[in-house]
């Protein structure tokens, strides 16, 4: 897939630096539209109540529930910026959740040690993907498909096919606790976003990532160690997946190797694309991806709170994906433009 697109884009002139409105405009407009619809039609959607110094309400719920996908989408954004993709993040979530739950029930290690070990394993998973892509030159879809298929098996190996449950207030805090009135997962996302943004926008790392995604050969000739950049982004993506895996595990106080993070890789990729990062790589929007994840979650919550049959969620999601893709497609814009001009004439 990437080869044909690569061949096509190599012939076209290099994209000019965008001078139009901010790339965040469209995703923000979509989110605003969704919220406005809710303001008009869903009573109580904007109602936020304070109980015991904690905030409750649909908006908070959206933030809280979107947290795992937001975390995944941060790592995924950088991977996609290098013209790659990581299909294994859902499986990595299951692996780390399984390891953490197993450690907390069988060992005497404290919560910080357990979380560190789980994140370490997630980092190893990411490194594995990165080595396959960067050093063995395997296509990202195939390379990460391997861990996606095997990963759930590994997670089930750790849990021995059971759903491991635990009682540990410290562990339960990660997904169910509150910090500054907001659910703790929101804090995790905010801190991760801040660190990622600082690392990529205040250092040359972001530039390296974009240059590898734009033209790997050229960036190698310019002295960028493209292999190391790729390994780094996949490792980071694994780490984000590990963090994301802590949340549902802690939330349900157990590890479900079969269902933890199932299909979330698709939601994460979707968030990134909705947020304005192209699958062709070379450019990325961290905040856009966060907005993308919020759009998906708002959509789901809206459908649920509107009393629409749950079964329609997927159909609506399909139409939204299509609409977003078409809006970003040059061909569709031109066609729509022509149609508009003809009407005006």
């Amino acid at each position, binding site marked *: *897939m*990437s*080869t*044909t*697109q690569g*061949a*096509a884009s190599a*012939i076209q002139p290099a994209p000019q630096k965008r001078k139009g409105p901010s790339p965040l405009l469209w995703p923000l407009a979509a989110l605003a539209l969704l919220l406005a619809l809710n303001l008009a039609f869903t009573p109580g959607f904007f109602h936020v109540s304070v109980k015991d110094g904690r905030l409750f309400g649909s908006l908070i719920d959206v933030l809280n529930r979107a947290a795992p996908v937001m975390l995944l989408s941060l790592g995924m954004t950088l991977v996609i910026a290098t013209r790659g*993709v990581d*299909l294994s993040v859902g499986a990595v979530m299951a692996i780390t959740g399984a390891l953490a739950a197993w450690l907390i029930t069988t060992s005497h290690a404290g919560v910080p040690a357990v979380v560190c070990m789980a994140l370490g394993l997630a980092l190893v998973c990411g490194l594995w993907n990165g080595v396959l892509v960067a050093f*063995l*030159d*395997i*296509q990202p*879809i*195939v*390379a990460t*498909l*391997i*861990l*996606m*298929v*095997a*990963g*759930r*098996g*590994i997670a*089930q*190996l750790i849990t021995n*096919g059971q759903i491991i449950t635990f009682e540990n207030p410290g562990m339960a805090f990660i997904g169910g606790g509150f910090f500054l009135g907001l659910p703790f997962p929101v804090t995790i996302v905010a801190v991760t976003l801040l660190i990622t943004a600082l690392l990529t926008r205040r250092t040359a790392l972001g530039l390296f990532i974009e240059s590898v995604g734009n033209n790997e050969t050229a960036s190698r000739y310019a002295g960028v160690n493209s292999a190391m950049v790729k390994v780094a982004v996949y490792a980071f993506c694994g780490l984000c997946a590990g963090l994301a895996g802590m949340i549902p595990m802690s939330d349900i106080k157990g590890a479900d*190797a079969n269902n933890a993070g199932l299909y979330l890789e*698709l939601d994460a*990729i*979707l968030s990134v*694309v909705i947020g304005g990062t192209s*699958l062709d790589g070379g450019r990325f929007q961290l905040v856009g991806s966060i907005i993308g994840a919020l759009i998906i979650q708002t959509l789901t919550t809206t459908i649920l709170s509107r009393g629409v*049959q*749950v*079964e*329609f*969620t*997927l*159909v*609506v*999601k*399909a*139409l939204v*994906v*299509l609409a977003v*893709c*078409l809006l970003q*497609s*040059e*061909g*569709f814009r031109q066609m729509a433009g022509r149609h508009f001009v003809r009407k005006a004439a």
Partner: protein
Amino acid sequence: MKFSLQKGSGPFYATLFVFALLYAGAALHFPGFAAPGVFVDFFSDNAFLGVAAVGITFVLLSGGIDLSVGAMIGFTSIVVAVLIGKHGVNPFVAIAVALALGTLLGAAMGALIRYFALPPFLVTLAGMFFARGMGFVISVESLSINHPVYTVLSEWKLNLGAVQIPLTALILLAAVAIASYIAKYTRFGRNVYALGGNTEAANLMGLPVGPTQVRIYAFSGFCSALAGVVYSIYSASGNPSAGSGLELDAIAATVIGGTLLTGGVGGVPGTLVGVLIFGIIQTGITFQGNLSSWWTKIAVGLLLLLFVLLQKFFMRGAAKA
């Protein structure tokens, strides 16, 4: 195209070799594994996976990807079940409707990919959500099919004396045979290879790149709809959540079968062997008894890794030659 079809068949023989090795190993290790009935079960138990993988092979050969096949199986199987069970439609008409719907959905995805230059990954992802969602809209529960014609279809077997081959296995074999012929000996098939080898070159040679691309996804849509029909015959029911995650198994089977995801190299017979390797692993783990089913996933992941590395090795060899 960079490599001739002859050179591209290296991975196919490697797959065949691994299949023979696994089969021989399992047959020696487990008494009763070599029985002809077990071999037939490889085909019938994996018939819907195989039929879907045949369609995916064309998509991968052209350098694209199709994530919608698993959802399509759920969608078409429930369409058939509801049409027969709730609306009293003749089973053959219901099957025809399901096949037409699948082809249409595939063609629509192909058109979006071609004419708006959208990434296949996202368009077929939307297709997957759409098909799965529509399946659930039609019916949340699975629905069994109790129609005399369907009973005949699911119980009929071709009697060859030593073995009896169920209809689903025959459909898989027919699909593989026809698709192999299409890929090798028709203009459409050669266009698919040309597209996957180098789309720009295919375009400059004057090949109908656009229509071919739409036809590829329509073909994959047809195959996955047929896979849904096969599922409905195999299980005598329709289930909107059938085939979930199957698209990745199908892609894995195709890659194990020697088709390159970059397109242009591979073929349908390899995909069949890839599907059979799936069957051996699953059956072998069942025969072992004390190994849990999740070992299947780990084994498939390892095999996928092995074959991807083998392909790299063959590609390097071909590039040097």
